[in-house]
């Protein structure tokens, strides 16, 4: 009886020993296998909690300076594209526009009058041309007459020596010839005068034409006036500032009456068209991250809520830690770094899901996991294609 009990006890002990060894071995092997599995999953699906939600921010600044007379939005309000945000007092710009339009009309009238002046200058040139032609003809007539009188005098002079003609006839011929010479000189002077009058008229005509400022079919004077009108119209249009896209108004801390200066940002718009998570991944995981991959974004503000996103790109540049410069020389510090921390690169993940009950806000803390599969989000152009076409280096 005692022997049987002893045998049973030994058998139980042996069984327990075997079971113990088996469980011990399974525990060690299990720890190894699950450890490898965890490492592998972490490498294939990189994840980080160093991530934040962000959107594009556009500062809204007026193009013109003036007092705000209407403010149609409140802080944190949602605005649609084209919605009126605020109005700057348009009256000074409307006055400038009216002045510019009046100046355009003046310019048009001036050009019209100069065109008319240019036309009359052309007519004057024509008239002077006729006068010059008449003077030319007169010179020709008097030259012919002068030639005749000179020949007549030359014929009379030998005859006068032989007493065939009277002295009086000779004197008469000489005086006629002298009068003819004087008339010829007068006619030539008139012809020269007509010629210079034509040149003067032509010069006047050219000046009138240049004052019209016509270049081909474009009149520079009128175009300049039109440009001033267009600029004034633009200024009036700039008085009404509209939302350039669907957005949320943020950091609006002013009201009507504030004097807005051109270029000075008054508040910001958060672009609601694109929301991103910027996740800073260690460089050791970048090999597993490619544009176009699907990603899961958890926000700590909404526990349990998962947003689907797509990797759209990995940052190309970080500020290098070891690049300092003192004057013109690099500053190299003496270090003995045995353990070096991995750099992190920002990975941009576009979030396409929207949930009105869980709105996205810039700056929210996020937890991002990049999945090992391409994103299949309807209506999404494959980011990998876009990226591949842009970047010659595969990411």
């Amino acid at each position, binding site marked *: 009886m005692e022997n049987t009990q002893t045998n049973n006890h030994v058998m139980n002990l042996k069984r327990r020993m075997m079971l113990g060894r088996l*469980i*011990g*071995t399974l525990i060690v092997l299990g*720890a190894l296998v*699950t*450890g490898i599995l*965890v490492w592998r999953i972490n490498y294939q699906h990189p994840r980080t909690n160093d991530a934040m939600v962000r959107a594009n921010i556009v500062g809204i600044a007026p193009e013109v300076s003036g007092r705000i007379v209407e403010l149609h939005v409140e802080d944190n309000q949602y605005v649609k594209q084209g919605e009126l945000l605020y109005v700057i007092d348009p009256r000074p710009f409307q006055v400038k526009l009216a002045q510019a339009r009046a100046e355009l009309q003046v310019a048009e009238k001036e050009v019209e009058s100069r065109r008319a002046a240019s036309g009359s200058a052309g007519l004057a040139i024509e008239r002077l041309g006729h006068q010059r032609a008449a003077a030319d003809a007169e010179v020709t007539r008097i030259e012919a007459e002068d030639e005749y009188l000179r020949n007549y005098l030359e014929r009379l002079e030998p005859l006068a020596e032989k007493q065939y003609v009277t002295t009086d006839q000779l004197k008469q011929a000489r005086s006629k010839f002298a009068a003819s010479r004087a008339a010829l000189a007068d006619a030539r002077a008139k012809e020269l005068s007509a010629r210079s009058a034509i040149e003067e008229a032509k010069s006047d005509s050219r000046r009138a034409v240049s004052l019209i400022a016509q270049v081909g079919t474009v009149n520079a004077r009128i175009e300049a006036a039109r440009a001033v009108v267009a600029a004034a119209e633009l200024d009036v249009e700039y008085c009404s500032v509209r939302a350039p896209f669907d957005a949320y108004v943020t950091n609006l801390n002013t009201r009507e009456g504030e004097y807005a200066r051109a270029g000075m940002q008054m508040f910001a718009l958060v672009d609601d068209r694109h929301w991103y998570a910027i996740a800073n991944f260690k460089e050791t995981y970048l090999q597993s991250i490619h544009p176009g991959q699907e990603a899961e974004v958890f926000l*700590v503000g909404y526990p*349990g809520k998962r947003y689907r996103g797509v990797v759209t790109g990995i940052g190309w540049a970080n500020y290098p830690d070891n690049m300092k410069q003192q004057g013109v020389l690099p500053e190299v510090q003496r270090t003995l770094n045995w353990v070096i921390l991995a750099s992190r690169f920002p990975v941009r993940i576009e979030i396409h899901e929207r949930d009105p009950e869980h709105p996205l806000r810039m700056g929210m803390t996020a937890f991002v996991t990049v999945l090992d599969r391409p994103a299949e989000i309807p209506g999404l152009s494959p980011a990998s294609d876009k990226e591949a076409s842009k970047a010659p280096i595969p990411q």
Partner: protein
Amino acid sequence: MLLRKLIKFSFPAFFAVFLTACDPILSIEGSFWPAWIICILAGLAAGMVLMWQLVRHRLAPYLGPPLLIVPSLWALCTFVIWLLFYST
């Protein structure tokens, strides 16, 4: 009776903790705790429970060197919890 009530309320509370922990980050009063810390602590608790069971069934002396087995059991529980609740 008391034990039954305790079990009745403790089981939902226990699972509720794990269900909230499915979120990759546990938020406690505005501070966010990463999954691996939760897994390590839960793995420690689970490892202690398992080791207690092994001791109760008198298997502990035959498992092997305690310096190897105890950390391995802790690591195993930690990894299994991570794989079950946080790997996807």
